[in-house]
């Protein structure tokens, strides 16, 4: 190959390299642009309506200025607590069964399929199902039914990510535990699950963040409430519900509160996820896997 020929080919390669890099950067920008736009819009519209009252007051009747969404923040917190108490243990337990004990059995395949279907059930249908299972027998809407609806929606996500993460734990690590004379159940809980825990926690957080913004399943279950309530047995407000109602209303004041509510919802989700990450990533183990 002559010197000139080499130079031409070299330049071609450099050009291709730059083009591909540029395309990749462009794609990345397109991916994050919607997020930045949403965040920017929410901050722009919502930040000005945020004040102390927003966090400590319940909504005022139409026509009166002021008021806040303290009851909705509390309501969302309570229902997400109930949802996590249902979705996280059942989901993780199911994932452990799928990956460790039922692998390859028909029963496990059936469960895996069911979980995937459940994941695809529209959230409004979930709301209706819980309406007929809990709300109708009880004869009233309640925070509990809202929490249950959200919890059931968390199960498939938590279950499947737990399974995937457990399957990623190298076989060598399991054998190491068995080779030490550790019983299988103990090895699964103390070694495999622990090794996979960063991924499992990510799965739980994803499920949590997803249901935290759900409105549809709450319409027929939690219903919403303009007043302060912390009872599991009563209808309760939730941030997404409140945003939905306020955004559809004809009042400018409520529109502003809806924006503020959106901002608070997003920030609270980010805070909750970061807090869990921080708490679970301390100690020697952080850089481990």
């Amino acid at each position, binding site marked *: 190959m002559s010197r000139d020929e080499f130079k031409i080919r070299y330049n071609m390669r450099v050009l291709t390299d730059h083009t591909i890099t540029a395309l990749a950067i462009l794609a990345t920008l397109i991916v994050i642009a919607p997020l930045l736009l949403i965040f920017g819009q929410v901050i722009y519209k919502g930040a000005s309506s945020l004040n102390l009252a927003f966090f400590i007051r319940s909504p005022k009747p139409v026509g009166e200025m002021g008021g806040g969404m303290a009851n909705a923040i509390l309501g969302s917190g309570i229902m997400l607590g109930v949802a996590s108490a249902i979705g996280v243990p059942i989901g993780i337990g199911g994932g452990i069964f799928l990956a460790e004990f039922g692998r390859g059995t028909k029963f496990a395949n059936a469960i895996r399929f069911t979980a995937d279907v459940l994941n695809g059930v529209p959230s409004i249908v979930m709301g209706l199902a819980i309406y007929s299972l809990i709300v109708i027998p009880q004869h009233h809407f309640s925070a509990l039914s809202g929490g249950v609806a959200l919890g059931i929606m968390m199960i498939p996500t938590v279950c499947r990510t737990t399974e995937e993460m457990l399957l990623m734990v190298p076989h060598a690590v399991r054998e190491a*535990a068995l080779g030490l004379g550790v019983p299988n159940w103990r090895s699964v809980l103390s070694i495999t699950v622990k090794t996979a825990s960063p991924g499992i926690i990510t799965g739980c957080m994803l499920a949590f963040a997803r249901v935290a913004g759900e409105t549809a399943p709450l319409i027929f279950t939690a219903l919403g409430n303009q007043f302060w309530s912390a009872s599991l047995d009563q209808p309760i407000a939730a941030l997404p519900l409140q945003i939905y109602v306020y955004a559809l209303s004809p009042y400018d004041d409520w529109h502003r509160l809806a924006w503020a509510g959106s901002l608070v919802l997003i920030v609270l989700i980010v805070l909750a996820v970061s807090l869990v990450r921080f708490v679970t990533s301390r100690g020697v183990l952080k850089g481990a896997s």
Partner: protein
Amino acid sequence: MGVGIEVATLNAWYGTNHTLQDINLHIPPNHVTALIGPSGCGKSTFVRCLNRLHETNPIARVTGVVRIGDLDIYKDAKPVEIRRRVGMVFQRPNPFPTMSIYDNVAAGLKLNGYHNRRSLDEIVERSLKDSALWGEVKDDLKKKSGASLSGGQQQRLCIARALAVDPEVLLMDEPASALDPVSTSKIEDLIFQLKSQYTIVIVTHNMQQAARVAEKTGFFLNGRMVEFDSTHKIFTNPSDKRTEDYITGRFG
């Protein structure tokens, strides 16, 4: 102290694949016994039958008798008990990635419900000294993860972990094949020192390694044990033609 191992008509299968055929063998106590042979000849399967790890694979099956000391391991005991008496070191170092160095060594005891803090400290120190790792890690026992060590250190950590449960037999499945020459020679020195306390069975691809560390050597081929004798005899004057062909590098 180590104990002897008696193997009679041992057969093992993976699915329909008959990987071990009629193995009969006496492994003497407190000696190093090397198992050599080409890839896929069944030597790894054989050591995995000695601590009943073979059967953790759902398609695997074993028949025959294995006695470790006085214990008929397929008859008189549960797999978990046997694995506490028969430690194992694997081909690739496999420390528990989420555990500190200390917890890795103590894992076998802690996970079996042993929690006496002071004696755990002693056992961890003794095991790390026995595996010649103590000097390199003693300042970071609880600060560093087992996975942060180098490959050779990780393998010595795994040896310490196996020693901590105080086994009678130590099985090593190509313990140095993933390591550099310096780490390999450290592991070999270690094997030499450990045989006063344990019966050691080592699988190796490396014939020089077998010649260096072992008193007894067994040659496996196609699931059968072709020859078992003193290492010296195997490497200088083997009785079987196939052994000689393998030793001299004609195949495998």
